[in-house]
C-alpha cells in the first residue's frame, strides 16, 4: 500500500493554497466590473426611461434625453470601422502572407506596435492636422471617423495577424503543394479559417471606438447641437463627449443624468463585446481542426 510521505502531504497543501490564491485574485478582478455597473444603475436609475433614450437634450442639456448622442456615436463607429476594417485586414494579410522578413517589414511591425501605444489625444491632434485642416474635411463626422479609424488600425492589424498565424502553416503548404496559387490559398484556406478571429478583433475595435472621447475631441464632436447630423460633413454629439460635458461643463444637471448616460454607454460597449464573445464561442464549436 502506498503511504504518502510528509513531503507529499506538504506538496498537496501548497498546491491547494496556490490554487485558492489564484481564484481569489481572479474573483477580485471580477468585482470592479460588476461594481461599476451596479453603482451606475443605482445612481442613474431615476433618469432612465424611454424618453431619456429617444428625446433631444433640452434646457441647456439639463433635461430631456440623449438621442442625438446615440445617433452620433453610431455614425462615428460605423464609418470608422468601414475604413479601418478593410485597410487593417489587407495590411495584416500582406504582412503575414507576402512580406519577406526583412528590415522594412520589421520597421513596419514596430511602427504598428508604436501606433497602438500612441495616446488618443495625440491621435486627435493628428486628426486635426491631417483630416480637418490638410484634407479640408473641417470638423466633421468624416474627420472624426477617420481619426478613430487610424487609432483602431493597429488593434485590427494585430488581432488579424494573430488570427492568421493561428491557421497552421501545414494547411498553406498542402494547398501550395497541389498547385494552388498564393491568392487561392488565402481565399480558400487562410481567410475562411481565420475569419472568426478577425471578426472578433473588429468587434472589439468597435467597442473601443464607441467609448473614445479624446481622439474625436478636435475633429468632429460638438458639445451641443440643436439638430441631428444630416451628412458626414456635419458635426455630431457622442455619448462619451456628452458624458464629459454634462458632468463637468454644465451647471444644474440632475445628478442621475451623467450616471444614466454612462450606463447607456457601458451597456452599449458591453453588448458589442458580447457579440464578439458569442461569435467566438460559436465559431469555436465549429472549429474544423
Amino acid at each position, binding site marked *: 500500500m502506498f503511504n504518502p510521505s510528509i513531503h507529499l502531504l506538504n506538496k498537496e497543501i501548497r498546491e491547494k493554497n496556490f490554487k485558492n490564491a489564484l481564484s481569489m485574485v481572479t474573483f477580485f478582478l471580477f468585482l470592479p466590473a460588476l461594481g461599476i455597473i451596479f453603482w451606475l444603475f443605482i445612481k442613474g436609475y431615476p433618469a432612465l426611461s424611454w424618453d431619456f433614450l429617444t428625446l433631444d437634450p433640452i434646457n441647456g442639456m439639463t433635461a430631456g434625453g440623449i438621442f442625438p448622442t446615440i445617433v452620433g456615436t453610431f455614425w462615428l463607429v460605423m464609418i470608422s470601422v468601414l475604413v479601418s476594417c478593410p485597410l487593417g485586414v489587407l495590411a495584416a494579410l500582406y504582412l503575414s502572407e507576402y512580406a519577406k522578413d526583412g528590415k522594412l517589414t520589421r520597421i513596419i511591425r514596430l511602427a504598428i506596435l508604436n501606433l497602438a501605444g500612441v495616446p488618443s489625444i495625440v491621435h486627435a491632434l493628428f486628426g486635426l492636422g491631417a483630416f480637418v485642416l490638410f484634407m479640408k474635411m473641417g470638423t466633421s463626422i468624416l474627420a472624426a471617423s477617420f481619426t478613430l479609424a487610424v487609432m483602431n488600425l493597429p488593434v485590427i492589424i494585430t488581432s488579424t495577424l494573430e488570427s492568421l498565424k493561428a491557421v497552421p502553416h501545414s494547411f498553406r*503548404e*498542402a494547398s501550395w*503543394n*497541389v*498547385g*494552388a*496559387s498564393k491568392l487561392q490559398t488565402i481565399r480558400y484556406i487562410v481567410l475562411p479559417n481565420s475569419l472568426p478571429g478577425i471578426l472578433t478583433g473588429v468587434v472589439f475595435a468597435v467597442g473601443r471606438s464607441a467609448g473614445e472621447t479624446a481622439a474625436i475631441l478636435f475633429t468632429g464632436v460638438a458639445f451641443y447641437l440643436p439638430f441631428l447630423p444630416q451628412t458626414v460633413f456635419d458635426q455630431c454629439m457622442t455619448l462619451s463627449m456628452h458624458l464629459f460635458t454634462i458632468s463637468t461643463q454644465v451647471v444644474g444637471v440632475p445628478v442621475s443624468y451623467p450616471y444614466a448616460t454612462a450606463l447607456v454607454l457601458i451597456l452599449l460597449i458591453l453588448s458589442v463585446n458580447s457579440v464578439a464573445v458569442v461569435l467566438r464561442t460559436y465559431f469555436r464549436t465549429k472549429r474544423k481542426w
Partner: protein
Amino acid sequence: MTKKIEIKNLNISYGNKIVVKNLNLDIFQNEVLAIIGPANSGKTSLLRSINRMTDFNNEVKVEGKILLDGLDIFEDEDSTFLRRRVGMVSPLPVGLPMSIKDNVTYAPRMAGCKDKAELDFILEDCLKKAALWDEVKDRLDHLATKLSGGQQQRLTIARALSHHPEVLCLDEFSIAIDPVTTMKIEAVLHELKKDLTIIMVTNVINQAKRLGDRTAMMLNGEILDLNINQKIFSGEINDKRTKDYIEGVFG
C-alpha cells in the same frame, strides 16, 4: 529509357548551411527511384526543390538546374503549373479543414474545373487509388481533419493524385500508417508506376527494396551510391557507408 528529370549541379543551402552539394541525378520515365539515407542528409530538400516548394521559404537558396522533360523548371515565373505536374506527399498527413470530398477535388477546382461529373469521377478514382474509398464512401461530407492519422495520410495521397501529376514525390509516406495500409498503398504505387514517375524518400530500407527500381543513398547532401536494386541489395556497392547503412551498422 527516357529521362524524365535531370538534376544538374544542384546546390541547396539554408543561410550558410549547405544541405545539398553539387548533386547530379537523372530520373527515368516510369521508374520508382527510392532515396534512402539518415536524417539531415538533404533528401527532403531535394524533393522540395523538384516541385519548387522551396520558393516559399525565403531562407532557402537553390542553385543549379533541374530539367523536367528537358525544360528548366526554374525558368517559369509561375510555379503552380509545375506543382500540378509534380505531385508531393508530405511525411505528416495534412487534411485541409474542409470535407473529404472538397479535399480531394481541391486541386482540380483550383485549376478551374467546375464540371461536377468530372469532379465526382476524380473523387472516386483518387480515393480508390489511395485505398481509402471503402472507408469513407458513406461520409464524403465529413470533415477531413477528423479522420485518423493513417486515413489522412491516404487522403493526402489521393489529393496528390487528383491533379494527374506526371511525377509523384513521396516523402516518407508510411510514417503515420500501419503496416497493412502501407502494403495496400505500396500495391497502388506499383500500379501507378505504369503512368507515373515516382521518387520516394524512405527510412524503411525494405520499402526501398520492395518498391524501388533503383535506389540512391544520400548522406550529407551527396549521393553516395546509385544503382538498380538488384545490384545495390546484392552487395554491389561502391561506398562502405552505404553498405553499413543498409546493413544497419549506422543510421
